């Protein structure tokens, strides 16, 4: 109610504002023609803008334009992708020919509450443009940043469709709070945290059609980010959607279709190898116990009865049957997508509209995703001093989810089932383990039963809307007011038929229905001022922002369904569980920024933001986040401007303070919670210890960078060095559990990230055959400086650890020392501290508890890089994009403890276990197989492996049909292409995919864990793009 009142208040004020203003300016008409200097041909779609205004148009097919400009307009700015931006004085008839070139420097870059020319930036902003985002077989836009933006590390985590991805901008700067960047869509900070309740975290960015996006700017340093204050420490990703352009209405359609399959498989034992090794492991136990293998109570007899039972009596020494359970987890996926986009307009009104349908069938059985998304954007010049605009999108995303990696029903866990077990129960003809047949005939629950007789579908409806009014108050002074909202309505429905009883303990079926409703609104109101005085140019911004987000959740569970024909809770005989809940947060902020430029050479930028939030304690509610940056364009100086070699050189430096407030809602309060009922009586319990002093994490960041261009910018690039010092970490500080609590959120501890970033763009060939290369690479080194003595663990086997002097989440384990060649014992280094020397003597399993843990790996990569080559010749274009990481380790203990564990358990084993020790003197890394005995399956560095990889992420070959052909078809464009995603991976990683983060374990610190995690899909697409 209050919100509505407030809305009405400022809308009314705007109406007053309109009424108070009289239009006095006199317009005049100008015309012109823009051509390409290299061949004199007319340029279609070049943008002509009156400098310092938003008055602009685009050229027609014949290169001409017509524009109504204010009487006092002096300069026109003409720009087009691939050409140098040119400024000319306003005349009645303008004729300009543009020069080709690397025009990156003159491109307009979106910054917080405004935009800036790349050349004049003093902060570090990485930009990914629409052509790098469009038509990739990726459900969410954040994945398009992978390998494209230096210093931005993207890990897709798993091959399950639509699940969360890890995005780290310049390292991990938090431990307990989120480390994901802030996503701002057309000025609105959007809901980007998981809202799902099943399996791994989902990615709410899948609701956004990537083809609607004009550009994504990643604000990396404090100079760029501090205007977002307490929410900028993890970087800010500004997503800007496409808007209409003046000129002929253009309609384009794109269709693409393709196939996908999982990138990699893991070699497992065949049925016969499994049986042989089982007998080998059982034989050890008989030998050890002095038991005659022929004794019916011997381990060997047990092995025989085991093989007999799990193979329905089919297994024998001579049987050749082999049921590849791993293979059944994977399927040929496919991908279909259709897009229509339309844009156009005149001087007064411009529009953009789009529609997309995407249908993806995953490479893991039972996984699919569909999206239907539409968008309409209108910009209108209401008067010569007032512009208004509106954009709204609506999408529906439907995902059939897979369970979390840790669930028996995760299809990839079928790999654990021995290949002796038939897929089908010969007695019932149903999937093995389906009742009324024996439910226990598969070693573990058969996950394909849940694919066949259960489903979990998530459907989200998402509306992003944004309206703005921008008024010119005085020459150079504008006021802009924006109101935006992000509405996320999501429902999840799950049903597990009675056939899943072994997994669900619901003998008559169980179903659930969940809803999440997130209403997030935001308003930005700010002045911009621009003034040129002699050689000085000043740009200033002053404004406020208010955001509030409220989330409501509800849930109902029912049991006992008449049959699988009834899957809604309405038919459940017992409504066994239910709840509803609500949470909310708000931010109120004021911000200011001044950019000063002198003589086109010397740049200075200062910014300040004041943030207050409902998330923080009463005693520390307001925070101030200043930043300052300077730039010096050396190439404008006389001593360099004459150089033929050097075309551009800018030195920039910045320092500022940003914060991180992503700690969930109400962490500062001492709370009781009313969820502690017992046997039908309501109850309450203490749930949280208060901390009235709680505030954001503070990150002080220093950045120094060099932007350069050589040979008329044919070679250009950026070099950056940064130091980020985070203090007052929002930490779930462990407290003695004897207090009744395990942690308290405190501002404790410090960590540091230092790194370098290198960007190099070259135009190798510029003739008819064009070849350009783009390389970016970054090295980040994170270090926990101070943790106040805290020990924080996470991940599979609690092997990830946060400790002082190390990067966040290092693997901290006992060190594996291989196998004793004499007896096949697994050995571990003692690593006890002996007067500063680590004791490198070894112990076997019996002495394992006396071996000390040491750092045996780091899930954070050293180098992250992307390498793109673009070729074009006549109508053909080819793009080859590699990316990769080096120097990180992965923890495979999740599956390794069962499946690479020389028969610690009965799971099918990876084929490398065939090398298990058998004879004295044998040198091997795999300990002797001792059935059910833990000989080396303890937590150790045996299960920490290198995760380096280089991946051919995308290869696209396209052909634009010649204009003559296209014109005959009455089209403006016709392009066909073939595109491949994840075509080739170079790695030594032993399991499925080195790009991994097991979803059930994922947290800030629990990175680099593999737990039967699905590999990325390899997708091949054929596409056609038609322009009218």
């Amino acid at each position, binding site marked *: 109610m209050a919100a509505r009142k407030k809305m009405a208040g400022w809308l009314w004020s705007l109406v007053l504002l309109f009424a108070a203003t009289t239009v*006095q300016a006199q317009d005049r008409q100008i015309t012109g023609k823009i051509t390409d200097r290299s061949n004199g041909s007319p340029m279609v779609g070049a943008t002509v803008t009156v400098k310092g205004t938003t008055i602009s148009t685009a050229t027609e097919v014949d290169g001409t334009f017509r524009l109504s400009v204010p009487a006092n307009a002096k300069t026109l700015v003409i720009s087009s992708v691939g050409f140098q931006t040119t400024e000319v004085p306003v005349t009645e008839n303008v004729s300009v020919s543009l020069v080709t070139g690397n025009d990156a420097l003159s491109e307009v870059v979106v910054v917080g509450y405004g935009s800036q020319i790349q050349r004049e930036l003093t902060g570090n902003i990485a930009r990914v443009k629409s052509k790098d985002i469009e038509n990739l077989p990726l459900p969410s836009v954040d994945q398009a940043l992978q390998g494209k933006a230096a210093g931005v590390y993207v890990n897709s985590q798993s091959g399950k469709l639509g699940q969360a991805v890890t995005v780290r901008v310049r390292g991990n700067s938090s431990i307990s709070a989120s480390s994901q960047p802030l996503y701002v869509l057309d000025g609105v900070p959007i809901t980007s945290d998981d809202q799902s309740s099943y399996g791994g975290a989902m990615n709410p960015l899948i609701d956004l059609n990537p083809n609607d996006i004009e550009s994504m700017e990643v604000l990396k340093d404090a100079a760029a980010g501090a205007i977002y204050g307490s929410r900028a420490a993890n970087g800010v990703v500004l997503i800007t959607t496409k808007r209409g352009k003046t000129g002929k209405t253009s309609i384009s359609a794109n269709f693409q279709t393709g196939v996908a399959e999982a990138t990699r498989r893991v070699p497992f034992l065949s049925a016969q190898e499994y049986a042989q090794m089982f007998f080998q492991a059982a034989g050890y136990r008989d030998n050890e116990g002095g038991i005659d293998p022929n004794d019916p109570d011997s381990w060997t007899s047990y092995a025989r009865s085991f093989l007999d039972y799990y193979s329905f009596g089919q297994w024998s020494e001579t049987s050749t049957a082999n049921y590849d359970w791993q293979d059944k987890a994977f399927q040929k996926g496919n991908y279909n997508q259709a897009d229509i986009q339309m844009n156009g307009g005149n001087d007064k009104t411009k529009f953009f509209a789009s529609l997309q349908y995407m249908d993806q069938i995953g490479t893991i059985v039972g996984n699919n995703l569909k999206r239907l998304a539409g968008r309409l954007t209108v910009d209108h010049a209401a008067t010569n001093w007032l512009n208004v605009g509106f954009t709204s999108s609506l999408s529906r995303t439907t995902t059939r989810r897979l369970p979390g990696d840790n669930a028996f029903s995760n299809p990839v866990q079928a790999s654990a089932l021995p290949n002796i077990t038939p897929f089908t129960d010969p007695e019932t003809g149903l999937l093995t383990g389906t009742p009324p047949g024996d439910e226990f005939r598969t070693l573990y629950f058969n996950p394909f039963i849940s694919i066949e007789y259960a489903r979990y579908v998530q459907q989200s409806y998402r509306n992003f809307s944004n309206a703005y009014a921008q008024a010119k108050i005085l020459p150079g002074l504008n006021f802009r007011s924006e109101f935006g909202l992000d509405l996320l309505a999501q429902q999840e429905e799950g049903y597990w038929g009675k056939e899943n009883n072994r997994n669900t303990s619901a*003998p008559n079926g169980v179903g659930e229905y969940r809803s999440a409703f997130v209403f997030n609104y935001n308003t930005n109101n700010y002045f911009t001022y621009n003034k040129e005085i002699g050689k000085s140019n000043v740009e200033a911004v002053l404004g406020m922002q208010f955001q509030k987000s409220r989330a409501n959740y509800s849930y109902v569970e029912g049991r006992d369904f008449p049959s699988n024909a009834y899957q809604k809770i309405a038919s459940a005989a017992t409504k066994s569980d239910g709840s509803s809940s609500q949470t909310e947060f708000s931010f109120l902020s004021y911000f200011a920024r001044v950019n000063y430029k002198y003589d086109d050479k010397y740049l200075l930028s200062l910014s300040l933001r004041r943030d207050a939030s*409902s998330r923080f304690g009463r005693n520390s509610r307001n925070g101030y986040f200043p930043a300052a940056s300077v730039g010096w364009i050396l190439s404008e100086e006389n001593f360099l401007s004459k150089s033929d070699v050097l075309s551009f050189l800018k030195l920039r430096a910045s320092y500022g303070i940003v914060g991180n407030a992503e700690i969930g809602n109400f962490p500062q*309060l*001492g709370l009781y919670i009313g969820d502690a009922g017992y046997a039908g009586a*309501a109850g309450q319990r203490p749930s*949280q210890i208060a901390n009235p002093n709680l505030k954001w994490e503070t990150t002080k960041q220093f950045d120094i960078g060099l932007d350069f261009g050589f040979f008329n910018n044919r070679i250009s690039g950026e070099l950056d060095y940064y130091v980020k010092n985070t203090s007052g970490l929002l930490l779930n500080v462990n407290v003695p559990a004897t*207090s009744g609590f395990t942690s308290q959120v405190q501002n404790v501890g410090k960590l540091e990230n230092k790194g370098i970033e290198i960007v190099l763009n070259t135009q190798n060939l510029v003739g008819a055959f064009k070849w350009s290369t783009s390389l970016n690479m970054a090295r980040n080194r994170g270090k926990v400086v101070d943790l106040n003595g805290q020990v924080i663990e996470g991940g599979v086997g609690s092997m990830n650890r946060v400790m002082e002097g190390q990067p966040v989440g290092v693997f901290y384990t006992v060190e594996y020392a291989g196998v004793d060649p004499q007896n096949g014992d697994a050995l571990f280094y003692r690593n006890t501290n002996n007067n500063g020397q680590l004791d490198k003597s070894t112990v076997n399993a019996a002495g394992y508890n006396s071996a000390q843990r040491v750092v045996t790996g780091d899930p954070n990569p050293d180098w992250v890089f992307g390498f793109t080559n673009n070729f074009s010749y006549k109508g053909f274009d080819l793009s080859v994009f590699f990316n990769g990481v080096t120097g990180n380790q992965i923890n495979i203990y999740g599956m390794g403890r069962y499946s690479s564990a020389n028969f610690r358990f009965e799971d099918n084993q990876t084929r490398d276990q065939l090398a298990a020790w058998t004879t004295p003197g044998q040198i091997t890394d795999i300990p002797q197989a001792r059935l059910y005995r833990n000989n080396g399956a303890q937590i150790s560095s045996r299960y920490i492996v290198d995760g380096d990889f280089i991946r051919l992420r995308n290869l696209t070959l396209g052909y634009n049909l010649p204009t003559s052909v296209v014109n005959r078809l009455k089209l403006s464009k016709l392009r066909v292409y073939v595109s491949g995603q994840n075509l080739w991976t170079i790695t030594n990683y032993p399991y499925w995919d080195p790009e991994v983060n097991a979803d059930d374990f994922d947290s800030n610190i629990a990175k680099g864990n593999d737990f039967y995690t699905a590999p990325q899909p390899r997708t091949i697409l054929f596409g056609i793009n038609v322009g009218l």
Partner: protein
Amino acid sequence: MNMRRIINICLAVFFLTACEKKLDLSPTQSISQENALLTEGDVKVTLIGAYDGLQSVTLYGGDIQVVNELLGNTDNILFTGTFAGLADIHALEITTQNTFARDTWIQAYNTINRVNNVLSALDKVTSSPEERDRIEGEALFIRSALYFELVKLFAKTWGDGDNNANPGVPLILTPTAGISESDYVSRNSVAQVYAKVIEDLTRAESLLPTSNTIYASKGAAAAMLSRIALMQGDYAAARDAANRVIASGEYSLEGNFENLWYLYMNNGGANPAEYIFSMTVTQQDGANSMNTYFGISIGVAGTGGRGDCKILGAHLNKYEEDDVRGEFFAQVGANFYTQKHLDIFGNVPVVRLAEMYLTRAEANLRLGTSVGDSPLDDVNLIRDRAGLDPLPAVTLQNILNERFLELAFEGQALSDAKRTRSNWSGNAWNSELLILPIPQREIDVNSNLVQNEAYD
């Protein structure tokens, strides 16, 4: 045009669009701790919260019993489950990171804090002295039961060396409002823990009503006291406490052994009159982790579980022919499972009357007394219910054997082996390996805690 006016309007728009009040948001599912314990009603719901804690799967929801059963128990159970923490407990390859040891520790103290909150606010209970007594008695019962379980799991057995020197577990008796130096506690001695538990349970028994539905009653406190006394070898106290429970007439032996189980499937979730204290499981609340690990689906609707604990032939052979308890195993494939925990929503028994008869019999026999009844009569009562012929005469071994079979897989056998100084699956009764480690996270955060010998 009047520029000043425009600017003024813009400024007004700009600065008035939000106010700081919008930042005062409160959670909706929680309330602040200052407002949580103000009335008698608040105290009562907090007591329910303590039962909720006690019922956690990591406590009497079943893990305490499961861990007691699995700890090194290779003579009776083949454990093939994938929970590494339990596999290690079964194989006695426990590490200090063991998640079951950790979670039971954390949840026990969490629940103790709930109890301490109740006890700190007893002055709010003003409706009647009886109500106040009941609340205090129940709270003391919950806390004492937990300390007894903790000291058995995490410390040396009573009498294994010097009880005054052996570290027990920290005794926390006041609620936690904030974290200060005093929260970095040390372990109290085994003797101190037992003394406090006996003091509190004795008071609880005096305060509690005889009948108290599913909540702790006078009989529950006495039954727990009998267990503690037995553990200490104080047979007179054990005998008298057990006799008080039997003589109260509040409980009676179920005629048919099988009717003690499948309570949700066959009895609508109601307890038989033999149950003295149990954790009530409903479809909406609570879980039975005995069922999780010992249970399995036997093709009958309502049964389920992971089937991790396979009962070995060696155990099955211990029953006499015709013993209904020996028939109370289900075969699935080549493996056998106890039928005591197959019901997915079955209540979790903590203590039942049969144990009181066996305790009284053992204590009477050891003391040469016949308080209540003779040892022979008490044992034959239990044998008769199991479909066995009465014994003509009874020895201590007879009673211990009967106790082992009657209470099999209910979490009592390890304590019995320890107190009778018996070998346990090839390990000495006082093996350091039969004690859980103090959780590593607790040692890491609180340097005042000493680790148990086997893990140091």
